[in-house]
């Protein structure tokens, strides 16, 4: 098949699966997940074909030949809006990790939703399965996990999600990207609120939707401004040199920015929402309310990656007018600041969280902060590299945590203990119970903390740190290094609490390793969590640099300007990353290795008030609640409803109503009464009276009538005689 055709087919297959599942196969679990898995499997296959074609043809084919078919879509005043698919270096790389993580998450979901387990007798749609009771051969009954009631629905949404991500990666213009972006927003809403009967899940879904919508609105304004100025949203036209030149040279009416800077900033707000950067990060931790595969999907493969992908995609616009070595332009400054701040901020919060998935959620925010900060200082390749490696190890970590939670739930069902299966302080010692999950999670965790040389996370994070250091942004460097230290610390905290030591609850003692359908994706992702880093080892790295070619940078260099560092590899950032990674890991292990059953967090005492702040996430939610949510409720409930609606509008309506009532009463008492009086007294009574009077004339006596007749005849006769003869009309 041609590359063009494949580019169209890759997104369309999951969409087709979504349609088929929702319309036809929703009753059959097997057919539904067969369709979903088949479609993403084929998409994966297509992606791999394209990927290897792209990297194979890289040396001989120039980048413009990657572009694929486009067609006229929307006739507009000036011309026709074209949409199409294209493939360039960035989408090739993104496609690679999206295809792998999506496929793995899909496979994992089959096990996570307990396909093949019995249907629980108390399970309801919209609630997590409660487990079912089965009898074994000896007649003893066991409680085992039960299958998800809305199994098909889950895969339908998931397929739609995959469709949106593929479309977003492969499209050739910002409008279709925006559409895919919004479909993803919808899917995240549907999937975070998948267990919709839980109020917390409902709230989280609404929160995610509204929070990302805030960013999206700015992004839409940015896109509209971009279109009205440049007349196109197609990448190859916007990012052409003269279009960018035009945007840079024109002055925007706001803040003294150029149009390029303003539009870049507006589009970056979209990234802030989608990639959960401060201050719009609040939705991401709450998104943990969804099933764990959804978390993995949102945090690794799709949603948040889409945000960074957008920032990478619009990087030429954001960095327009800036050349490597120059001072940062305002938009990049904002990005670098927000990214670095978010990295540290979220890492700090993660230290105070006890929920296994929430720690990972904050680590995602923190790592995305790294990428945004890297982009902000112009380290395009480093950001893209970290995006790829992060997708792999974060998908791995989420699926691993899902496997742990699954094992814990198994224990909870077995022991009937009242324990939150996500609380890390109730775990411990799972190393022996779930060896495969442990080893893969360890790899993922080490990749996240940047364990030197082996893991992918080390190479990408080290590249970011060295780029930041070499471009001389010392404050950002320190912030990111500190974040990396804390990252390693809380990762080790998580690993120690979950897997090491002794079980701290009965459920943890009875936890079980998950099924192969869940552990297999873990192994595959663990493989990438290590090897994905080896494609980007800097050529000038001490000792092992140059053993493997820095393929990643070479590949991406085709489209992007990049900070070209010619000096020798600086040892300071390398030393820093070694220290923070190993130091953080050691520290985490030392602090948390002795946590026993029921004891509090060891940091609680030494940190005191600070720890409370960390546990409560710096009270950002409370602040938003106070500043935004409650005023909004007040505006809706008190101001709009009570005052405006009930008071003012209803008041006016009631006044009109009362006036109408009064007018009616007035008419009734005056005019209507008069008319009635005339009708009653004058007409009706008059007629009745006259009739009564006249009825005496009808006596029934024949001779009276005759007399009357004679008399009247006489009178008429006399009248005629007088009038006719008197006037002489008869003529004689």
């Amino acid at each position, binding site marked *: 098949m041609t590359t063009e055709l494949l580019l169209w087919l890759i997104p369309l297959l999951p969409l087709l699966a979504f349609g088929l599942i929702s319309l036809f196969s929703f009753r059959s679990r097997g057919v539904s997940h067969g369709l979903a898995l088949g479609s993403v499997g084929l998409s994966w296959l297509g992606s791999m074909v394209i990927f290897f074609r792209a990297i194979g043809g890289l040396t001989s084919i120039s980048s413009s030949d990657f572009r694929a078919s486009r067609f006229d879509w929307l006739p507009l005043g000036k011309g026709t809006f074209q949409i199409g698919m294209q493939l360039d270096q960035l989408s090739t790389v993104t496609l690679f990790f999206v295809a792998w993580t999506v496929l793995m998450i899909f496979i994992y979901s089959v096990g996570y939703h307990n396909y093949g387990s019995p249907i629980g007798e108390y399970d309801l749609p919209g609630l997590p399965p409660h487990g079912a009771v089965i009898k074994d051969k000896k007649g003893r009954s066991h409680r085992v996990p039960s299958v998800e009631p809305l199994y098909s629905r889950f895969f339908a949404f998931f397929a739609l999600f995959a469709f949106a991500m593929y479309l977003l990666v492969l499209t050739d213009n910002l409008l279709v990207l925006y559409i895919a972006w919004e479909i993803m927003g919808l899917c995240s809403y549907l999937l975070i609120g998948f267990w919709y009967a839980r109020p917390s899940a409902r709230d989280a879904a609404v929160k995610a939707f509204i929070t990302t919508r805030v960013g999206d609105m700015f992004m839409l304004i940015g896109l509209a401004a971009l279109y009205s100025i440049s007349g196109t949203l197609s990448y190859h036209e916007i990012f052409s040199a003269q279009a960018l030149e035009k945007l840079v040279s024109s002055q925007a009416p706001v803040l003294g920015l150029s149009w390029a800077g303003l539009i870049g900033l507006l589009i970056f707000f979209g990234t802030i929402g989608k990639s959960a950067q401060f201050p719009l990060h609040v939705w991401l931790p709450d998104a943990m309310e969804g099933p764990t595969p959804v978390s993995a999907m949102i945090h690794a493969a799709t949603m948040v990656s889409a945000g960074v992908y957008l920032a990478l995609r619009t990087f030429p616009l954001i960095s327009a007018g800036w050349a490597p070595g120059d001072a940062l332009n305002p938009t990049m400054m904002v990005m670098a600041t927000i990214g670095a701040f978010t990295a540290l901020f979220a890492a700090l919060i993660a230290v105070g969280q006890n929920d296994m998935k929430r720690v990972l959620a904050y680590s995602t925010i923190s790592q995305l902060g790294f990428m945004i900060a890297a982009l902000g200082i112009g380290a395009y390749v480093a950001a893209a590299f970290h995006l790829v490696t992060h997708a792999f190890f974060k998908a791995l970590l989420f699926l691993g945590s899902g496997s742990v939670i699954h094992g814990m739930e198994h224990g909870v069902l077995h022991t009937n203990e009242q324990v939150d299966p996500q609380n890390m302080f109730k775990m411990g010692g799972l190393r022996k119970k779930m060896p495969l999950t442990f080893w893969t999670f360890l790899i993922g965790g080490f990749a996240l903390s940047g364990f030197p040389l082996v893991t992918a996370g080390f190479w990408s994070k080290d590249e970011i740190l060295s780029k930041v250091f070499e471009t001389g942004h010392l404050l950002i460097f320190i912030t990111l290094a500190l974040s990396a230290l804390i990252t390693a610390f809380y990762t080790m905290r998580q690993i120690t609490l979950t897997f090491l030591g002794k079980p701290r609850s009965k459920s943890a003692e009875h936890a079980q390793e998950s099924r192969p359908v869940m552990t297999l994706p873990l192994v595959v992702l663990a493989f990438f969590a290590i090897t994905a880093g080896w494609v980007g080892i800097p050529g000038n790295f001490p000792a092992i640099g140059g053993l493997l070619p820095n393929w990643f940078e070479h590949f991406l260099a085709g489209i992007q300007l990049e900070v070209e560092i010619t000096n020798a590899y600086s040892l300071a950032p390398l030393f820093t990353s070694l220290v923070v990674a190993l130091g953080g890991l050691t520290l985490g292990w030392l602090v948390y290795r002795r946590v026993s059953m029921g004891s509090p967090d060891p940091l609680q005492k030494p940190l005191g008030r600070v720890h409370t702040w960390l546990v409560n996430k710096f009270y950002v939610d409370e602040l938003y609640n106070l500043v935004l949510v409650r005023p909004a409720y007040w505006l809706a409930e008190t101001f709009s409803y009570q005052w405006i609606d009930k008071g003012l509008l209803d008041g006016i309506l009631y006044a009109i109503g009362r006036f109408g009532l009064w007018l009616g009463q007035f008419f009734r008492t005056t005019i209507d009464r008069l008319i009635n009086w005339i009708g009653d007294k004058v007409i009706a009574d008059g007629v009745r009276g006259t009739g009564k009077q*006249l*009825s*005496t*004339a*009808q*006596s*029934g*006596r*024949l*001779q009276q009538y*005759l*007399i009357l007749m*004679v008399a009247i005849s006489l009178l008429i006769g006399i009248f005629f005689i007088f009038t006719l003869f008197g006037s002489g009309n008869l003529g004689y």
Partner: protein
Amino acid sequence: MIPLSWYLIFSTALFCVGLFGVLARKNAIGILMGVELMLNAVNLNLLAFWSYLYAAQMNGLVFVAIVFITASAEVAVGLALIISVYRCRRIVVADEMTELRG
């Protein structure tokens, strides 16, 4: 020859007698007889005018004959009515037949 006016005076007198009878008599049969008198007065009037003014034409005679026929038919119906009233109510006094009083 007797002048026309004598006939007219006689017929007027006869009509008045009949009219008086119709208006004054209590007995329904008497009223009927008064009606006959009035009819005869009219007939007389018709014949007198015919004989003096239009003797060459037959119209007057025919008209009178028709009035006679009508009168006899009327008497037959009238008497039958009076008899049936008498059979019902044992009265022949016109003043007491007040069923149609308003």
